[in-house]
């Protein structure tokens, strides 16, 4: 892969990694034996681990100039591998924390393995590790194909991918040491946040420069969504994470926001992380891989426009529905609630556009588990966006808030929608990237599909039941006007559901492991000889490129 870089690009890589190692040395010196110092060591090790392959191929011959007439897929391949590695890590941590809720002794009496530290390793592992890598990889794939342009940079895609993964590693290792900002989904501390800003701005520049090179007159819908994802996540991340470290050698910082404003900024961030990270980005994925796999045109371009602008505009307003019945002023809550209701139709328009695109291809849905992954993902997208708007209505929220219903809602979204659309896209992407006829085993794709569906349903139904029972137990009064149940009573009632959700999560993890094996065997298989020249910016014959193995 590094052989594909020119010698000046290799020099650039070595200089960048040297600088990174120097930053690590500085951090280690300032932080000494504290978590900041340990993170310095991790940065040094990360830089050295990447420097090794760069230096070992440093004097290899210059790459073939013809490579520039192909799409640039090396970083995407690495990104897919990282996606699956983070999936296994994040989902394993999820099963572990779920099991801890049923059997608290599984923390083994150690500080690093307490629920409070493991829980963000799960959320960061799956959202940012798995989801983020999947978004970066697929976005770089899609922008090239839909623009008929090679990525605008040889080194910068690697910088974005590796820099992003360094951020994820700093985040997760920090949690084990107790480093956290205590902001949900924004736990990483100031230095990791600053690093992510650099990486993310590079990502934005890379993306927009590639789009600027496009040979298509129009920008495809998938790219609108990916652009919204990249741009808005940058804005959210910067605003929510403005903080002042207590010293240059400390991992600890304090946010500049205070009181209820802090809560509002956090949930403006938190909900738009759901919106622009877990929704817009993955809709970009859906809009490319679903029509490609179904071999059908998108149902309606007009519906695409309506749902894109609806989602992009309305989502920005709804964060306050996370703070119903709190110290947040009543009017802010109502505003968030009404925008959440108006958000429903644009959301459903996307799900409907996806499902109606399948008209004329339902026989493929029946026969092809990969396409079925994407079909079910669209259904879950519709279900969880309806549920989200419903739960945002204040009186409904009075029952659901702080209960497992929220957990059910989130997992219907992330297991049913985000993970399934990702797996469907990856099973489409992998044979195309590695130039194979198809996945190593369609049967194993089928096995993965059913494990994922079973796991999602067991998980979501367990949490729906447990959440509604919790909510009802907390608000049931006796005829004498006192609460009927103590909090501990509701915990006892949760116990069987906590076991069921652990089992559901375990099934989902099992499916992911099957997927990893299948991908590994596909990569190892012999490349297909035909079709090599088809997936390129300027195909040999005139006219449009036929869609090859994808």
């Amino acid at each position, binding site marked *: 892969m590094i052989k594909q870089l020119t010698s000046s690009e290799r020099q650039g890589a070595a200089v960048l990694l040297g600088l990174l190692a120097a930053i690590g040395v500085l951090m280690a010196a300032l932080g000494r034996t504290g978590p900041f110092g340990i993170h310095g060591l991790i940065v040094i090790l990360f830089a050295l681990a990447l420097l090794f392959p760069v230096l070992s191929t440093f004097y290899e011959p210059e790459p073939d100039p013809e490579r520039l007439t192909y799409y640039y897929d090396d970083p995407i391949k690495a990104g897919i591998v990282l996606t699956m590695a983070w999936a296994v890590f994040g989902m394993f941590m999820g099963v572990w924390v779920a099991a801890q809720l049923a059997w608290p002794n599984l923390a083994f009496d150690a500080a690093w393995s307490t629920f409070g530290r493991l829980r963000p390793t799960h959320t960061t592992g799956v959202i940012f590790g798995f989801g983020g890598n999947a978004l970066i990889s697929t976005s770089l794939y899609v922008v090239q194909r839909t623009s008929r342009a090679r990525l605008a940079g040889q080194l910068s895609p690697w910088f974005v991918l590796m820099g992003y993964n360094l951020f994820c590693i700093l985040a997760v290792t920090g949690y084990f040491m107790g480093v956290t900002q205590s902001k949900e989904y924004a736990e990483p501390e100031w230095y990791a946040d600053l690093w992510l800003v650099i990486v993310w701005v590079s990502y934005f520049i890379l993306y927009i420069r590639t789009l600027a090179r496009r040979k298509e007159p129009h920008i495809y819908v998938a790219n609108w969504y990916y652009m919204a994802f990249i741009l808005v996540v940058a804005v959210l991340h910067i605003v929510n994470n403005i903080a002042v470290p207590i010293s240059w050698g400390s991992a600890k910082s304090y946010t500049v926001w205070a009181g209820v404003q802090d809560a509002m900024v956090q949930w403006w961030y938190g909900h738009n992380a759901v919106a622009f990270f877990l929704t817009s980005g993955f809709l970009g994925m859906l809009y490319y891989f679903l*029509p490609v796999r179904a071999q059908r045109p998108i149902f309606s371009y007009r519906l695409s426009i309506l749902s894109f602008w609806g989602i992009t505009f309305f989502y920005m307003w709804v964060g306050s529905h996370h703070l119903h019945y709190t110290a947040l*002023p009543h*009017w802010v809550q109502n505003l968030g609630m009404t925008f959440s209701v108006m958000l429903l139709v644009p959301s459903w328009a996307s799900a409907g556009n996806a499902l109606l695109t399948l008209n004329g291809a339902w026989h493929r849905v029946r026969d092809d588990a990969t396409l079925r992954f994407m079909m079910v993902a669209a259904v879950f997208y519709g279900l969880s966006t309806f549920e989200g708007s419903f739960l945002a209505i204040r009186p409904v929220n009075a029952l659901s808030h702080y209960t497992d219903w929220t957990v059910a809602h989130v997992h219907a979204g992330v297991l049913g929608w985000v993970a399934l659309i990702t797996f469907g896209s990856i099973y489409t992407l992998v044979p195309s990237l590695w130039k194979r006829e198809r996945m190593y085993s369609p049967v194993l794709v089928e096995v993965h599909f059913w494990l994922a569906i079973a796991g999602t349903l067991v998980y979501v139904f367990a949490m729906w039941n447990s959440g509604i029972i919790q909510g009802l137990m907390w608000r049931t009064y*006796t005829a*004498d006007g006192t609460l009927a149940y*103590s909090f501990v009573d509701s915990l006892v009632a949760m116990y069987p559901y906590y076991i069921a959700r652990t089992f559901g999560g375990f099934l989902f993890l099992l499916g992911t492991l099957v997927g990893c094996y299948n991908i590994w065997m596909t990569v190892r298989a012999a490349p297909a000889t035909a079709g090599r020249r088809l997936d390129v910016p300027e195909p040999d014959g005139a006219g*449009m490129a036929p869609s090859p193995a994808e």
Partner: protein
Amino acid sequence: MSVEELDPVSGHRTTGHVWNGIKELDTPVPRGVLIFLIVTHIFAVTWWFVMPTWPLGTTYTKGLLDTDQRKIVEQKIVDAEAQRAPWVDRIEKASFDEILADPKMMEIVKTTGHRLFGDNCAACHRRDGKGRSNYPNLTDHDWIWGGGPEAIMQTITTGVNSSNAKSRISQMPAFGRDGMLDPGQVDNVAAYVYSLSHPDYSTPERIKQIEAGRQVFLTTCAACHGQDAKGNQEVGAPNLTDNYWIYGGDIGTIITTIHGGREGHMPTWDERLTPAQIKILATYVYSLGVENP
């Protein structure tokens, strides 16, 4: 670039754009979607008119219903208190004997007491009141500070070794660590204390050690635990002759207790619970023991 074409499945035209093989149909937005979109907007706009919603500089639109979440909560609290007032009043005025004899009041004690116990006491004493290691069992009739409803109420109100000025105070000194007894003496007293609840332990070969321990006990421990070791509820000294233990009744734990002393803590509840709630809890805890003869 290809031109617009007709899709045979849907009967709609494409937009004419193609991206790596992907085309789009120019299908109009379905009427149902537009109607549904309008319905959600009508709902939202109606809500804006009737509820506080939009900011206006330093204030906000109050809405036609003139409602506010703080006012609603305050009213709900007043209403709930009014609903409870009759029986709260009765329980506050009644004596414990009257409460225990009255089935209606005991029903309230059972339901409300269960809830109060679960939310306030169960963390240490467990949900069933049976306690766990280091936290006393409240159902075994072996009371440290007295098991009558009045004594229990007093304990809940002020706590033990708590921040309350009237707290019950009890401290067992660290006899071994602070050098009041040498290790041999600690072992001997432990053997004696253990033998009180385990008569089989007094075998001929141990009788000398136990006797030596008894002498130490009479001079050192009896001040609190009594000559007969049956404890003293005035100072919170437990009965050592039964087989109920707070910190564990094996020889090793008894030695640890004598060596390092003990100072249990129970928080004061008078800041968190109302007198009526404390009275309900005291009756509830008392009834746990009655149900468990």
